[in-house]
């Protein structure tokens, strides 16, 4: 008579039959996708004509606007992606606060440089909006794919925070390109896409990132 396998044996057999990426492999894939995302974002900037010219906005101001925003984006990334020795990272409430503060900080920062130089022209901001969304889509999608179904706590908060972080980095490049700081333009072209990314990240994160029961093994 064949002995009945124990729950332990069944699980270990299932683990052996169900390969999952190791830490090294996960890191390699993440770095590859990050490099691809940066390449695509820089490619979009290049296709749109590169950094704003001196005639449109003083070059020093362009680098100041982008540099300070880059520091904010780096700090936000540190908050969202570093895990401080815990598998689950920061509490969902903190991630959510960071996600919803990002568009407000962006609005305040770009508003603070308004009037410090003559605006070269007026635009609604549809191109800035499209560029931001285009640049942020790949890193956000990559994150959702890489961490699909493995977040046990606040997947929607993590999704929102990652959406905000991708939007912040995309804005860094868009700020290099766009010489406008008019409030109406900033709201449509720069802040709105970050809000869209936060909401999209939250909805998709809730659907994709959260832990879900796995299907029973095929018999």
């Amino acid at each position, binding site marked *: 008579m064949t002995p009945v396998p124990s*729950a*332990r044996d*069944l*699980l*270990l057999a*299932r*683990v*052996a039959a*169900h390969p*999952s*990426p*190791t*830490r*090294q*492999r*996960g*890191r390699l894939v993440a770095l590859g996708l990050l490099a691809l995302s940066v390449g695509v974002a820089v490619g979009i900037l290049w296709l749109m004509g590169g950094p704003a010219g001196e005639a449109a906005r003083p070059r020093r101001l362009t680098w100041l606007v982008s540099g300070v925003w880059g520091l904010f984006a780096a700090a936000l990334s540190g908050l969202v992606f570093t*895990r401080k*020795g*815990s*598998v*689950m990272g920061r*509490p*969902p*409430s903190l991630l959510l606060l960071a996600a919803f503060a990002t568009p407000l900080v962006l609005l305040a920062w770009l508003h603070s440089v308004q009037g410090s130089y003559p605006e070269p022209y007026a635009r609604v901001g549809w191109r800035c909006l499209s560029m931001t969304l285009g640049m942020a889509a790949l890193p956000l999608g990559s994150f959702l794919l890489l*961490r699909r*179904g*493995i977040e*046990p*706590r*606040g997947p929607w908060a993590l999704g929102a925070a990652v959406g905000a972080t991708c939007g912040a980095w995309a804005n860094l490049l868009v700020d290099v390109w766009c010489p406008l700081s008019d409030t109406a333009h900033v709201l449509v072209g720069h802040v709105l896409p970050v809000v869209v990314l936060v909401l999209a990240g939250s909805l998709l994160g809730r659907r994709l990132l*959260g*832990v*879900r*029961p*796995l299907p029973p093994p095929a018999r």
Partner: protein
Amino acid sequence: MARASDSAWRTALSAAMDRHADGDAAAFAEVYDALAPRLKGYFGRRGLDASGVDDLVQQTLLQMHCARQSFVRGADVVPWAFAIARRLHVDGYRRGHFERLEPAGALGESALDARPSAEAPPDEVASAQELAQLAEAELGRLPPLQREAWRLVREDGLSVEQAAAVLGTTATAVKLRAHRAYSAMRAALGLLRSSSSKGDSP
């Protein structure tokens, strides 16, 4: 002494999960052996039947295997495992995969676990049963956040910090919730004692 052995147990578990995250398939057996009994207790205390408990323990450990790439070197495995367990449990109820059973008998692994010894006189057994039933009922009446904090800290044996990591909140909030739950239960049990002592008096 218990604290030192618990710390050694946690370090060994973390090291085993580290090896598994690095690709050592055999190390997962150690993770299973260390966590399965605690996870069984976790699900059992939440009113699941034996098959539901086994299914969720398997699911929790399988999820940990699937998510091994996200394991941070040297991190504490217990809060992560319990957070996955909690998510699967909550999700299962929402989807109606299993129904809640009444806690198995008053002397099961209940809120106070006031199990008298086998040689205890019948009146002591009855009193302990009554106390445990009351504690369980009182626990059921508590707000979910307080109940969960109490259960994680008092029944599942997690530290306040670990419970805070499972619930995604601060250690202070967990302490507060557990203390409020404790006060509510103490008040309820105190009422029982005072009413029974009044009943005893001539």
